[in-house]
């Protein structure tokens, strides 16, 4: 007969209340893990969705995310001719505020040439950009419906398509627009002084400036070799997708990631201590019963099983409760709470380890209980 379950059934209400408490605690810990994973995932969604194998940027920079980068638009043709490159597209990147009816939406604008690399990999609703001007494809996170119009730089843009889950490393929704629109917008949104000098034809006088060229490579091509070939151009630098990704994680979102990561560790530690204390209290509540078991000759195995099984049951029920709670509310978070099967499995393992380690102290105490403690009234 299973003593752990029988004892729990005997004081079910109390056990369930304890489970609710553990569940709330675990939902916070799970949320923290999800938020941490969300920051990591969001940092990488942009590069992932563009499917870029190679980023060609201004020499001496590690752009376009970690540092500002400007290259002439015609570099795209140079890159396209490099052996191993299948396709290349020029892109611009800048954050901007879009005026929608009744509100301002902060967004990451990504200008690209439809038909070339740089656009969204999938459209969730509506269509992608065509040849027409003043159209945008916005991420659902921006909260704009299809057909809505927004104003930027005095021009009205119409939402023709929606994507899902495409955000910049800071969490702003991505908004795609035609490269030409973005270059004009760049000009309109830049400070008046520089605008005047550019209009007067001073300096380079070239408005065909982009922030990076993204290239897709042939299947057989070696990204590092192609990057090496590109770097031979004096005014260009190149980063492979792997380099760009690690740059994003180690530089762009490094502080946010480490901050959240450290807090997650602190939270898991606190969770472990609290669960250990709860298990200890549960065990000490049963001091007389454990002593009685010893009186009637129950072996240590029985007592260890009683404590450990209850601890694991507490952890499991609490985990399921916490997870359900979090999954029910996670879409209300303003940024991604990334909790996939993998994170859930890992956290389940962490909770199991916490329960087993947390039981250790209680088991030690339970095994030391003197049988005589059960004698007397």
């Amino acid at each position: 007969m299973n003593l752990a379950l029988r004892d729990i059934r005997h004081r079910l209400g109390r056990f369930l209340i304890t489970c609710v408490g553990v569940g709330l605690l675990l939902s916070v810990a799970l949320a923290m893990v999800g938020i941490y994973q969300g920051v990591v995932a969001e940092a990488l969604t942009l590069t992932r969705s563009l499917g870029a194998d190679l980023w060609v940027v201004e020499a001496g920079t590690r752009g376009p995310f970690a540092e500002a980068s400007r290259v002439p638009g015609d570099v795209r043709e140079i890159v396209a001719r490099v052996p191993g490159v299948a396709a290349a597209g020029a892109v611009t990147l800048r954050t901007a505020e879009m005026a929608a009816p009744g509100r301002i939406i902060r967004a990451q604008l990504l200008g690209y040439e439809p038909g070339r690399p740089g656009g969204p990999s999938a459209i969730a609703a509506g269509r992608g950009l065509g040849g027409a001007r003043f159209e945008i494809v916005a991420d659902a996170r921006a909260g704009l419906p299809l057909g809505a119009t927004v104003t930027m730089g005095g021009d009205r843009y119409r939402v023709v398509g929606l994507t899902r889950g495409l955000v910049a490393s800071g969490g702003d929704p991505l908004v795609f627009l035609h490269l030409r629109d973005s270059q004009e917008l760049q000009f309109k949104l830049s400070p008046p002084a520089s605008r005047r000098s550019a209009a007067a034809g001073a300096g380079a006088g070239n408005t065909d400036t982009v922030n990076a060229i993204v290239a897709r490579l042939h299947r057989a091509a070696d990204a590092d070799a192609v990057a090496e070939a590109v770097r031979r151009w004096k005014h260009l630098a190149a980063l492979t997708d792997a380099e760009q990704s690690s740059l994003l994680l180690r530089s762009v979102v490094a502080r946010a990631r480490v901050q959240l990561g450290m807090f997650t560790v602190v939270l898991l530690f606190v969770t472990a201590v609290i669960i250990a204390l709860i298990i200890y209290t549960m065990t000490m509540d049963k001091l007389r019963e454990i002593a009685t078991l010893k009186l009637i000759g129950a072996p240590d195995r029985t007592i260890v099983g009683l404590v450990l099984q209850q601890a694991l049951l507490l952890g499991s029920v609490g985990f399921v409760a916490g997870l359900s709670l979090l999954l029910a509310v996670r879409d209300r978070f303003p940024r991604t709470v990334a909790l996939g099967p993998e994170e859930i499995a890992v956290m389940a393992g962490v909770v199991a380890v916490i329960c087993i380690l947390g039981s250790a102290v209680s088991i030690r105490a339970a095994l030391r209980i003197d049988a005589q403690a059960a004698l007397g009234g």
Partner: protein
Amino acid sequence: MAERRTLIGLSGITKRFGEGEQAVRALDGVSLSVAAGEVVGLRGPSGSGKSTLLNVVACITAPDAGILALGDGPVWEGGHYTDPDLRALRRTRIGFIFQFHNLLPFLDATDNVALAMTLAGKELGAARARAKALLAFLGVEKRAGAMPARLSGGEAQRVAIARALANDPPIILADEPTAALDSERARSVLDLLRRVAAEREAAVLVVTHDEKIFDRFDRMVTLRDGRIDAVA
């Protein structure tokens, strides 16, 4: 009955609680033996060491000095236990009817009795069947499914007796088992213990204040200040 095998043998057992000035000599050189089939009563004023004596025999309390032998040979000798697994000894060879019953509050009457048997290796179904039979034998079959908190003192006492008898132990110890019972029940419990002693050749040692049942014992031992006072 002179040649009956001795199942409980104490020789010069001493037990002190506390240190120095406040030390209490609960047992002071107690020697006593109980043979198979014998039912011995233990009486004495409160605090004379009766419970301590029973706990020493059950290997719940370790003595300070002396020799304790149970059946085959000494289990306490020279200041230590000879068998490291006292609990195995307790669950297979000793049936203890505790003064305060000590039933597990989360198991019903049947499973409180059955647990003692499953701990000793019996299969659960068979253990429950025997538990029910024992409860019926003790007249509490109607309470077989009741939780201990819902049992009266007398009912709980009889469930505790059933548990003590469950594994057919050769040694049965009882600390005031009839305290919660009326005199008729008290006599029938004693008669039951006498029958177990006779049928199974068990040694039975019972602490009691209850003069109404003194006649049911083969022998009465009186403790006073931790010493055996007189043998009747």
